[in-house]
């Protein structure tokens, strides 16, 4: 997929996630669009692109969200790498694969991110964080994943002949 399409897409998702979602969903639990995009594209398309999307999207989130730089980019890049690996291992049309992947990916990103934040000196109340934020977010992402997965499969059909990287 052309970087001229990927970069605006990632930027749009990053802006939506950091600007619009907090307006519409002021609570602590929100769908993680960028994570769904990275995981979904990794499962749908694979070929190493999810790794790139993860790094790129993570960098944008790091810049726009104001979190310690590298937190999202490393986490999402790693998740994208795993998603790419899944695409080569499992048959991509199995809907359970993206569902399970996004659920596990959410747990990994959020718990890993919290651990990193705690390392950097941020106090984390783990029980509250896991039960009030991580698990509800994982469930929400899983619930919305079929929609993202369906959209990305359609996008994949459109862009696959013109893939450049």
């Amino acid at each position, binding site marked *: 997929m052309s970087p001229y399409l990927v970069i605006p897409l990632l*930027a749009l998702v990053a*802006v*939506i996630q*950091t*600007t*619009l979602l907090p*307006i*519409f969903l002021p609570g602590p639990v929100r769908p993680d669009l960028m994570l769904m995009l990275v995981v979904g594209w990794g499962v749908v398309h694979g*070929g*190493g*692109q999810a*790794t*790139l999307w993860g*790094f*790129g999207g*993570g*960098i944008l989130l*790091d*810049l*726009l969200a104001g979190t*310690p*730089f*590298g937190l999202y*980019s*490393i986490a999402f*890049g790693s998740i994208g790498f795993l998603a790419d690996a899944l695409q080569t291992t499992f048959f991509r049309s199995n809907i359970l694969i993206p569902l399970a992947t996004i659920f596990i990916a959410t747990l990994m990103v959020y718990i890993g991110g919290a651990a990193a934040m705690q390392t950097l000196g941020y106090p984390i109340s783990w029980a509250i964080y896991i039960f009030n934020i991580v698990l509800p977010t994982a469930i929400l992402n899983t619930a919305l994943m079929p929609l993202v997965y369906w959209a990305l499969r359609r996008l994949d059909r459109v862009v696959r002949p013109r893939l450049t*990287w």
Partner: protein
Amino acid sequence: MFDLLRSRVGVVFLLLLIVILGIVLRFTGNMGVVEDATFGVFSPVQELLIDVTNGVTNLFGGFQSVNELRAQVKQLQDQLNQSTLDRVRVRELESENAELRAQLEYKQANPDYLLSGATILENRARVLGQDPSALANFIVIDQGRADNVAVGMPIITPAGLVGRVTEVGTHWARVQLINDSSSSVNAVVQSSRATGIIQGQGRGSDLLIMRFLPLGEAVQEGDVILTSGISGTFPKRIVIGQVVQVNQRDTDLFTEALVRPSVDLQRLEYVLVMKRFTPTDITAEETPTPAPSPTATRRAPAPTVTPTQ
């Protein structure tokens, strides 16, 4: 170098370098330049999105406000309705309070009477003309045999005579009103002491008729008619009404007068059952008493009469 960038590994490597550089800049406190550049690019987009979002939110908020306003209007309407009901209830209570207070004062002013308050359960006088079988003008009160109410007991209000108990149940009693066509009450003209009999005219007329007034006796419009106490059926000096018309023809043996009851029999709500009173014939008295008073009743020692069933 460019070939490396064209490969995915190269791009990943480049991105990793960017991340590492960013981390270094963050920890060295030099990230501000990058953030400024980033927000310089993205802030117009973010502001635009926020403006659009706020517009959409306000639009939906407007719809929501309309719904809230409707809910508020409904709530206020309910409150207004409740307030109206409360106001009506307060007026009713004030009216009831005034009436009961008047009854209490009447009881205190007439210690010889054993009076018991009663509430009207049914006022057939009020529904006259609606019930074809309602040949009689009567009311039903909420006191009966269990409350020692007996047939013949007078029923009054502080304003005057209402009627007489004609039928008693355990917890109810039927009262024949004085405007019933079969009702007869011995009466006296307050000013002239002329006696006669007050009878009802039945349905269709609110006025009573005073019959058997001797010819030539002075009865004029505006005269007050009281119970005379003759026969002991009713206590003396209970106000019955006021003369509104005098019919006197030379060919008649007696004079008749139309009397408007002092009690609005159509709007009775609370009455007093006179369970015991002292019967006195006031026709022999020379000095008329304008209204019932404690001294007047105390002046007339007589055996106490309790109407029996």
